[in-house]
Every structure is written in C-alpha cells, then in structure tokens.
C-alpha cells in the first residue's frame, strides 16, 4: 500500500536554468545534502508530500551534456540508468531552448521517462520568443510543461503530470537521426541485445559510435568482436561525413535540436534594444566593463569589511564575557583551559562566518543570480590565461580575498582536476581578510598605508608568478574557456538565501573538526610550557634569517589556527598594542610577508585535504612554508637597504 504511494523523480538540466529554484520550491525544508559515494560532489535530496503521495526528489548536478567529460556527467547518467527513477524532469531554459534541447535529446536516448519543464517561460515571452509547447510535445512524445520557477507557477503541474503518468503506462518513441547513422545504430543494437549491461542497447550503440571510453571498455570486456564492428561502421560514417564518427553523432543531435526549434519557435522581429542588451554593452565593454567591475567589486569589499568590522566589534565583547564566565564558574585548571580552547576555536569559526563570510556570500550570490559573475569571467579571461587557468578562476580569487576557505571550495567550477588544483593553490596565496588585519593593523598603522597597499600589490605579483610556474610545472593542457553567458535577470531572493545557507553550513562542517582539534593541541603545548623551547628551536629561522624577535616562532604557530592570531598573540605576549615599541619597521614588513604566505590556515588546509587528499595538502603546506621563509628573508635583506 505505502509502496504504491511513493514516487521518485530526479531533476536534470544544464546550469542557469533555475533547477535549484525548482528543487527548493518542491522540497522546501525537507532536504538533506550528502555526497555521491566516493566523490566530493554534493548530492541534494528532498521530499515532497503531495496529494497523498510521497515524492522523493533528487537534484542532479547541473551539466551541459551526458558524455564523459566530467565526473558530474558520469554520475548523472549512471544514476538515471542504474537507479531507474520514475521520472526525469528536465528543467529547460526557454530562452536558450535550442541548446537545452540537445541535452534533452541525450536524456531521451537513455530511454527514461522524461518530462520537459520549459522554465523562465515568461522571460522568453518578454524577449519575443513564442514556443509552441503542444507541437514540441507531439514531436518528441514526452509531456512539455511551461513553468516560471521563481514564481512557483507550473511546478505543481509537473507533479500532477507525474502522478497521472505513474498511474498510466509509459511508452517511448525514438527520434531518428540521419539515415546512415540510424543504420549503424540498428546494426549495432542487434548485436548488443545479449550483452548484460544496465543500459538500453540503442544507447550503447550510440555511445560506441561516439567513442565513449567507459562504454567501449565495458563492451570490450564482454564482447570484443563488437568493437571491431564499431570501428568498421565508424570508418564508413567518417567516409560519408568527412569527420570522426564521434563528432558526427554530436553534430546530428545539434542539427535535430535546431530543426525542432525552427518548427516550434516563433521569434518576434527585433524591437528596440532591450535593457539587458544595453546593460551588457556597458558591463562587458572593452573599457567601461573594467571600470564597472572595479566599482562593483570595490563596493562589495567595502560593504563586507565595514559590516564585518562592525559586527565583530559587537561580538568580541560577548565572547570575552563568555570566557570570563567560563574561568569564574568552570575554572582555570589545565583541563578547563583546554575545554575553553575547544569552545573558543568553534566560536572563532562563527566570528569569521557571521561578520565576513555571510555578507560576502550574500553579495556574491546576488551577483551570480543577476548574471554578473559570468561577465567577470569574460573580462578577466585573458589575464587569467597568463596563469594557465581561464576566466572562471578569477571568481575563486575574489572569494579568496574574503576568506580562503570558500575560495578554495569554489574552485569546483573549474572543469579539469588540474585546473581545480592550480586554482586552489593560488587561492591559498591570496591575502584573506585575516591577513588584511595583520597588514593594515601592523604595516598600515605603524609604517604607512602606502606600504600596506604595496604589500597587497606584492601578493598579487606573487600569485601571478606562482600561477605561471605551476601551469608550467603541472603537466596537462590548459582548458579553454567555454561559458554560457546568461541574460541579466532579477535576483531571486529565496534562491540566494538557500545558497548562502548551504555554503555557510559547508564552511562550518568542513573547517570545524580540524580547527577545534588543532586549537586544543596548540593550547596544550602552550599550557605545558613548551612554547619557549619551540621558539628557541625556530630561532635560527626567525631570528638569524628573518631578523625577527624569537617570540615570532610562537606567533607563527598560533597563526596556523587563524592568521589574525599572530597580531592578537603578539599583543598578548607584549602586554601592549604599541607594536612600534618592540618591532622596527623592516621587522613589521617582514613579519607581514611571512604571515601572508607561510602556510594556509587550518580551515583552508581542511578544504585542501578534503578535496585533493592529505598528500597534496601536506605538500602545499611544506612548499609554502619554505617559500615564505625564503621570500621573507630576501625581503628583509632588501629592506635593510631601504630603511
């Protein structure tokens, strides 16, 4: 009885189609996130209770195709084929119908029950794009439903349709590609009928012709003679079409999509230039584009930092009050102090998350939902290419200026593992808000503001050179930028809030364990009285090479927890914030340089560890420590001439 009332559906679709808005609307608060088995890619699931049915909804990663270029694509098609969901809802961006149809055709090849949701139907209409849904439905023989996810309209129609079809039967028709291709496909499908694979034979045939590595591998294991046949058919196709059979199929899909689009879409003749177009002319212009970008990003940092400084000045006394309460009521023995340092580490996370990361994410997601982030990638692509990565990497750098942790996490938008890793390493060198506290609190205040800004510029140069080096050292082809340029649209508040909430949660979850553990360990070392020994041990580096007071050895160890602790602990050890009494100007600059680069903070290390494994994380830490010591030492020698 209960079984009959259960339906599971998956949401599939390309990026920027409003898929997550649909997901959030359908499942509301009944969501949970996890990871795909063995992968670092997030898995979003939720439940909807509707008309007596329990509908399980899974949100597949946003992808552009179902071929094996990326992990996300493989995950998606494996899930659809092996888990056999009752329905796959393909969320389609009506404005970019043709491209989205190519993806829909790939879904149909999988022979799963598909429902097309033509999302942003209102925006398409506004642009003068009239889509004949009935005709589309007749051509591809699956239900087509117009929706406007941001207003929730049409979304219950999808579920109604799902329920209606669940109770009835389902049948498929195959859309035919070109004659010669269909011949090859049917010849292969015949041979494939008895291979024991979870995929439909027609789909396997298509993938073999497309030279899909994974499918070829599994067929070779089962029936190697088919591969010979595939080769022969592929060569025939190449003779007819003049290029590789894998491209023939992709081309065919693309042409079919364009033919269908011509049949069902009427575009009203161009009226006056739209607001979108006018905005785009300014924001992606050769000159004004950069000006607008500087204004927007500058405004963003100004807003985040002024809000952040205000909120932390409110939070700090509150947490100090808690500390005093702890000392008075719990105690100040060894164990009590360790207990407090665990709590303090956890609180410290919120001290960064609430004042800085929260507003940062909100503004970032507003910019993204509006469509501006893609413009930044466009404008910065050329520059980023010089570092061996493409324009999208710029976004991670911008986020990294706020905090390295979300900066490193955001590298997931890069297509290849190589680029993800390069970008993540470079982000760890970007001075975050905690480093800015040191730079401005020490150098800006006691040397001069000009020097502080100079250090920022210096950091940019270092990141740039490191990028050039790593793109040379790490083998592999740089990936060219291929990016869809979305139209500007009104940001959708609920989507932004959901995304912000998810990202904040992720930040806390990933960072918390290592931050708390290392906080306790370092405090234990401190309480055991081993710090002086450590600072003596480090003095050949800190004193002899860098020319800093021996105490900086201890500071730098605390700084691994959070960079701004370097300054906080310095004040605590000296009993004064008058740093000019104990440090000379060159010493301040040297200390700032070391702090900038010497190691990512524990929270950032956690991300590197989780995303790239402990070996790479450790390698990055060691390299950066050595690099920072070398660099700061050289800076010190130079400074001796200046001052």
């Amino acid at each position, binding site marked *: 009885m209960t079984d009959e009332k259960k339906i599971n559906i998956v949401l599939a679709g390309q990026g920027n189609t409003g898929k997550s808005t649909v997901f959030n609307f359908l499942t509301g608060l009944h969501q949970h996130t996890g990871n795909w088995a063995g992968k670092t890619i997030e898995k979003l699931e939720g439940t909807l209770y509707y008309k007596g049915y329990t509908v399980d909804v899974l949100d597949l990663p946003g992808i*552009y*195709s179902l*071929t094996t*270029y990326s992990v996300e694509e493989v995950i998606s098609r494996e899930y659809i084929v092996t888990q056999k969901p009752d329905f796959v809802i393909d969320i389609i961006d009506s*404005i*970019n*119908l*043709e*491209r989205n149809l*190519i*993806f829909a055709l790939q879904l149909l090849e999988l022979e799963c029950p598909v429902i097309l949701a033509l999302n942003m139907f209102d925006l398409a209409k506004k642009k003068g*794009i009239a889509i004949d849904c009935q005709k589309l439905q007749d051509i591809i023989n699956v239900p087509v439903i117009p929706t406007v996810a941001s207003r929730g309209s049409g979304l219950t129609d999808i579920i109604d349709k799902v329920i209606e079809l669940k109770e009835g039967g389902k049948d498929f028709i195959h859309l035919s590609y070109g004659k010669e291709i269909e011949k090859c496909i049917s010849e292969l499908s015949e041979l494939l009928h008895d291979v024991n694979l979870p995929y439909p034979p027609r789909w396997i045939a298509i993938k073999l012709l*497309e*030279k899909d590595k994974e499918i070829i591998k599994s067929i070779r294991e089962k029936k190697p003679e088919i591969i010979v046949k595939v080769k022969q058919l592929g060569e025939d196709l190449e003779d007819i079409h003049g*290029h*590789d059979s*894998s*491209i023939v199929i*992709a*081309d065919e*899909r*693309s*042409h079919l*999509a*364009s033919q269908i*689009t011509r049949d069902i879409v009427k*575009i009203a003749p161009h009226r006056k230039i739209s607001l979108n177009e006018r905005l785009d*002319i300014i924001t*992606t*212009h*050769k000159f004004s584009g950069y000006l607008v970008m500087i204004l927007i990003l500058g405004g963003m940092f100004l807003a985040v930092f002024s809000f952040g400084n205000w909120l932390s000045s409110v939070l700090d006394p509150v947490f100090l009050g808690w500390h005093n309460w702890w000392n008075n009521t719990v105690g100040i023995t060894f164990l009590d102090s360790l207990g407090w340092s665990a709590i303090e580490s956890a609180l410290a996370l919120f001290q960064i998350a609430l004042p800085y990361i929260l507003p940062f994410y909100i503004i970032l997601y507003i910019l993204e939902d509006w469509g501006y982030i*893609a413009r930044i*990638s*466009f*404008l910065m*692509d*050329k520059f980023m*290419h010089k570092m061996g990565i*493409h*324009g999208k990497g710029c976004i991670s750098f911008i986020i990294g200026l706020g905090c390295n942790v979300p900066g490193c996490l955001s590298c997931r938008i890069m297509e290849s593992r190589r680029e993800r890793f390069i970008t993540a390493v470079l982000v760890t060198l970007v001075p975050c808000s905690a480093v800015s506290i040191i730079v401005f609190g020490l150098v800006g205040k006691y040397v001069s503001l000009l020097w502080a800004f100079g250090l920022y510029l210096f950091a940019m140069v270092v990141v740039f050179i490191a990028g050039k080096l790593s793109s040379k050292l790490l083998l592999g082809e740089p990936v*060219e*930028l*291929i*990016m*869809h*340029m*979305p*139209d500007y649209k009104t940001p959708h508040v609920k989507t932004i809030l959901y995304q912000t909430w998810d990202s904040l949660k992720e930040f806390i979850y990933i960072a918390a364990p290592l931050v708390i553990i290392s906080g306790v360990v370092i405090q234990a070392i401190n309480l055991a009285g081993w710090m002086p020994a450590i600072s003596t041990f480090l003095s050949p580096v800190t004193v002899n090479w860098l020319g800093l007071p021996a105490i900086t050895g201890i500071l730098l160890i605390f700084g691994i927890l959070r960079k701004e602790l370097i300054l906080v602990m310095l004040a605590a050890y000296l009993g004064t914030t008058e740093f000019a009494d104990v440090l000379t100007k060159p010493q301040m600059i040297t200390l700032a340089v070391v702090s900038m680069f010497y190691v990512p903070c524990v929270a950032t290390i956690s991300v590197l560890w989780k995303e790239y494994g402990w070996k790479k994380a450790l390698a990055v830490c060691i390299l950066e420590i050595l690099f920072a010591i070398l660099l700061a030492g050289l800076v010190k020698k130079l400074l001796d001439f200046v001052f």
Partner: protein
Amino acid sequence: MNKAGSKISLSEMEDGQYGIIDSIAGGKNLVKRLADLGITKGAGIKVLRSTLFSGPVQVEVCGSRYVLGHGMALKIIVVLND
C-alpha cells in the same frame, strides 16, 4: 575590412559580424563539447563583442550567448555573411 564570403577564423571577426561555421579545427573532445552547445558546422554565429589584446569573444549561436576563449576562437573557421 573582411568581405562577405571570405573564410576567416572567429577571432578575426569584428563585433557585429555574422557568418556560418565552416569547420572547427580542434581535437575530438573540443569539437564534441562545442556541438553539445549547438556550436557546430553549419550553425550561424554572430560576434557580439570581443575584448582587448585578443582575449575571449562573446558570440551568439542559435539564440544562446557564449564566451569562447581566444585559443578556441582561432580554431573556429567561419564563412562571412553580409
């Protein structure tokens, strides 16, 4: 000025020019990736905007807008229309 009917790479096209893709001289994966987006032989392509110092180009293909890196634009050969 490039004349209608001449064959040039996408990177050489000027803002506002329109043409039909003649060939894509890339590796298999690249060509397939582009075909999945509708950027394929025979498709019409319009350059909306290019950037300074041979950066990426912004193009319109079958109603969608894309940004393509310079290296890729070099590989896409287009027959110019009026």
